């Protein structure tokens, strides 16, 4: 199959199958226009840099949920890779590129450990990764007892500001390029299909000859890899390492629910959750600009999520009946 036809059929499939994501993008554009009306100085770059760590987490969480699992340790893995990156960059500032690559490998390795434990123990994913949440959080504290370390200038440079016009923040470009480089080839590979297959019908996939266990481990490894990118993004945006995990686990789950990934597995993509993160972020900004009290604004965010997910479930039901 030639590349152009392949690309065309991919885009066609996406537009046909992923109306949910298209709808989310429309909602986001409307929200952005509304935000501009509230405060004309508001730029996409602030949203993009603030959303970058959790957007990587959402992408990672989406992969493992599509495979039929869930990774509760994703926030801890982000904290762990964040402090490893910050302390290594403080000690070896001249080796920043190898350090960044090493941190990515550590993320993939940590994810592989999660996956192997899930496969070998046969304990439900949610239990194993809950246990690993504590293990990796403890490991982060062992690496760095208090917030500290440092970043490297180029990490900050590639993620701050915009490329030319204001609507193209660097953080968004980095996000889309990195996720695209990993996800698009994966989606078009046997492994990608296997990830959807085991999430859709694990026993059926096994009976069809899919390597269920290897696929599961690979999915967790990819999630760990994306978590490490989230950790690196934290290092870049904060300039230090913080050993206490942020609220990224719950945000990543919220984003995939909003982004059209089925928690039952087998359905959804990565773009939806990423747009979901942006929507959650811009709603937060809007509520602040409108002078909403912070405590009340989290209530509103929760209510909006419930409404969006209910509308989604309603639309899905109607389409089934049609």
């Amino acid at each position: 199959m030639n590349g152009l036809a392949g690309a065309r059929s991919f885009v066609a499939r996406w537009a046909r199958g992923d109306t949910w994501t298209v709808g989310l993008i429309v909602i986001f554009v409307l929200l952005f226009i509304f935000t501009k009306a509230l405060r004309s100085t508001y730029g996409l770059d602030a949203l993009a840099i603030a959303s970058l760590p959790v957007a990587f987490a959402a992408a990672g969480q989406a992969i493992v949920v599509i495979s039929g699992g869930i990774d509760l340790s994703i926030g801890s893995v982000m904290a762990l890779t964040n402090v490893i990156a910050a302390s290594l960059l403080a000690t070896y500032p001249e080796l920043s590129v190898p350090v960044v690559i090493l941190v990515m490998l550590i993320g993939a390795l940590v994810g592989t450990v999660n996956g192997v434990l899930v496969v070998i123990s046969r304990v439900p994913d949610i239990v194993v990764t809950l246990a690993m949440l504590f293990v990796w959080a403890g490991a982060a504290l062992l690496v760095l007892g208090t917030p500290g370390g440092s970043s490297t200038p180029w990490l900050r440079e590639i993620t701050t500001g915009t490329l030319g016009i204001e609507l193209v923040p660097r953080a968004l470009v980095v996000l889309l390029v990195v996720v695209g480089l990993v996800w698009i080839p994966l989606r078009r590979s046997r492994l990608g299909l296997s990830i959807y297959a085991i999430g859709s019908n694990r026993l059926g996939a096994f009976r069809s000859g899919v390597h269920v266990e290897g696929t599961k481990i690979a999915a967790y490894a990819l999630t760990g890899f994306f978590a490490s990118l989230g950790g690196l993004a934290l290092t870049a945006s904060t300039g230090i390492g913080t050993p206490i995990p942020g609220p990224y686990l719950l945000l990543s789950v919220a984003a995939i629910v909003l982004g059209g990934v089925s928690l039952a597995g087998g359905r959804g993509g990565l773009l939806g959750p990423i747009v979901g993160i942006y929507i959650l972020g811009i709603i937060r900004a809007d509520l602040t600009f409108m002078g909403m009290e912070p405590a009340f604004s989290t209530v509103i965010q929760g209510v909006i999520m419930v409404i969006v997910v209910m509308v989604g479930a309603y639309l899905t039901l109607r389409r089934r009946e049609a």
Partner: protein
Amino acid sequence: MTAIPQPETHATSTPPRTAPIVAMNDIRVSFGGVHAVDGVSIDLHEGEVVGLVGGNGAGKSTLMKVLSGAQVPDSGEIRINGQRVTIHNPRDARAHGIETIYQTLALADNLDAPSNVFLGRELVGGLGTLDDAAMESATRELMERLNPRFKNFKAAVASLSGGQRQSVAIARAIQFNAQILIMDEPTAALGPAETAQVRELIRQLKADGLGIFLISHDIHDVFDLSDRISVMHQGEIVGTVERAGVTTDQVLAMIILGKKPDEVTSEELAALH
């Protein structure tokens, strides 16, 4: 009504007794203390349909899981075309030309028909990417033969009807030059028209020379399609009979009483009615 091309004659007569393509000898499987399959021997010839019947828990599905690689037996040997083979998982079974159509369809609901047909054996193009175009056109070609009314090649199979889903399951089984087909309750979830279609298909596959093990609760299915009928009861084979030599009542008696026709007294037979 169906547009499936009919074979010249419905070759339900017994095929010549060549060497069997499948011979399972003295197969045993137990779960804890329960002997699900207890020393069963069964064989299958080219172009033959062997019906496997028995009550719930008789061991027929477990026996077929052994052949399809979903269950590793405790002991016993399996010969394919005379060669002794070991089957540890579904991939091994497929390598020997054994395909299975499960009662609970083993389809990945969120994937489309071509992805399901090729799942586990995907076609890849250059750079290791999936060759969707080739998989779709092969699936279309296959469906032309199996179910010409099947048009929905892009939708997730969750949205298809029971008959269409069964067509996908059968397409997957025969796509890769299967020699031996195991059908576990192939018509259980289907309406009358779809059942007729599947029966027609089984006759056609048989005419193509496949050996088919047919597990069914429906005694009419079994009588209509099988050359021989093996009856299982409590993990053992009660007997294997030529379809032409028995009545449905005799087979029912074997299923319920666990005895061969000549061992059943007329009182016992009368008590069944």
